[in-house]
């Protein structure tokens, strides 16, 4: 039986995240004015992951966290039995959560980071003092390194399934379709509601805009001293 496990929003999320991550990496490497794009793409990643979190609560059946939350019981069953399953396996789910949390952390730390080679800083730079900026900037690059390790693990696991277990996990992430035996699925897959999708996207765009426009910062710190070059200069 052929079922749609990964719905379109989830697949789009996945591949947009892959692309954004790559662009964020390249723009940071080239540096200079490309860092302007680095900031944009970082904000986009934050919005994407926020969308994914919402979709994890209201999305389609296989997208929901409750469906693949890697509880000890599920993990135990996964390792001890060889039951076929669709969607994230409990072990895969661990990796999903790890990746989401790590990539989200990297992006959020970037909001506070300073690259003084290019006098480039994130939109939340004004919210913390210089010492913390330095610390968070270091974390931004260190946790990025950690994220690379998890991405490699992610890819290795998929290759392991592809060549050793003869199970192609890439194809379903493109088409959404999975082949499952009849016993595994009796009821049709529950889809997400369009209105929920719409609201989730709207919320993500709203967050993007709040940060990008600087509205959030001026709301949190109304009387904040803006970065030094924001001060309107007296004639002397």
């Amino acid at each position, binding site marked *: 039986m052929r079922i749609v496990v990964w719905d379109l929003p989830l697949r789009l999320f996945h591949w947009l995240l892959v692309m954004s991550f790559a662009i964020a990496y390249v723009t940071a490497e080239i540096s200079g004015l490309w860092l*302007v794009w680095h900031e944009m793409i970082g904000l986009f990643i934050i919005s994407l992951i926020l969308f994914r979190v919402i979709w994890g609560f209201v999305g389609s059946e296989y997208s929901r966290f409750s469906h693949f939350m890697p509880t000890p019981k599920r993990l135990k069953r996964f390792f001890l039995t060889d039951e076929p399953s669709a969607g994230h396996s409990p072990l895969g789910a661990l990796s999903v959560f790890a990746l989401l949390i790590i990539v989200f952390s990297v992006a959020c730390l970037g909001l506070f980071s300073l690259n003084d080679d290019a006098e480039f800083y994130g939109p939340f730079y004004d919210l913390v003092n210089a010492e913390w900026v330095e610390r968070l900037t270091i974390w931004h690059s260190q946790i990025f390194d950690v994220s690379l390790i998890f991405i490699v693990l992610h890819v290795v696991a998929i290759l392991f399934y592809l060549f050793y277990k003869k199970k192609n996990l890439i194809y379903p992430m493109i088409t959404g379709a999975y082949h499952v035996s009849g016993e595994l699925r009796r009821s049709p897959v529950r889809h997400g509601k369009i209105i929920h999708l719409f609201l989730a996207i709207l919320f993500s765009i709203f967050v993007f805009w709040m940060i990008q426009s600087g509205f959030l910062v001026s709301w949190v710190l109304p009387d904040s001293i803006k970065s030094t070059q924001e001060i309107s200069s007296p004639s002397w």
Partner: protein
Amino acid sequence: MKNKILLSLCFIIGTSYPVITVADMKAEDAIKFRQSAMMFMRWNMGKIKKQVVKKPETYNKQQVIDAANVISAIANSGLGALFPSNTEKGKGWKETKIKPDFFEQPEEVKKRATKFNKEANKLAEIANSGNVSHIAEQFDATLKACKGCHKKFRKKNKKKN
């Protein structure tokens, strides 16, 4: 008598000469001077970045010219004198981030520093044109020259590098 005065004058100048050379600048001061120079350039780079790249609607020709002139003036001020060999470690406003390599590869340092000077001077020149996209292009080149030296000779963070 005249000879004696001349002789003692020679003596005074001769012995005090090393004291007034830059190489004997107090290490702490040297580090402070160079850290201040970098910081002051940051302020001016930031102004250009804001007016030319981030918010072009705020572009103010004179302010950008002034900022670019400051940067090229600092670049041409002989910053190299602020890196005497006794400043490999030490504290100015804060701990220096310089790598030991800086003192072992003077040729490489010179190449990268000269590159920065060239780009900074060109930035000041192009700022006069008032052409925002040209300024942005040259601004980018200047940033890359900054990074060219930092990447090789500046420690990334407080950890050993």
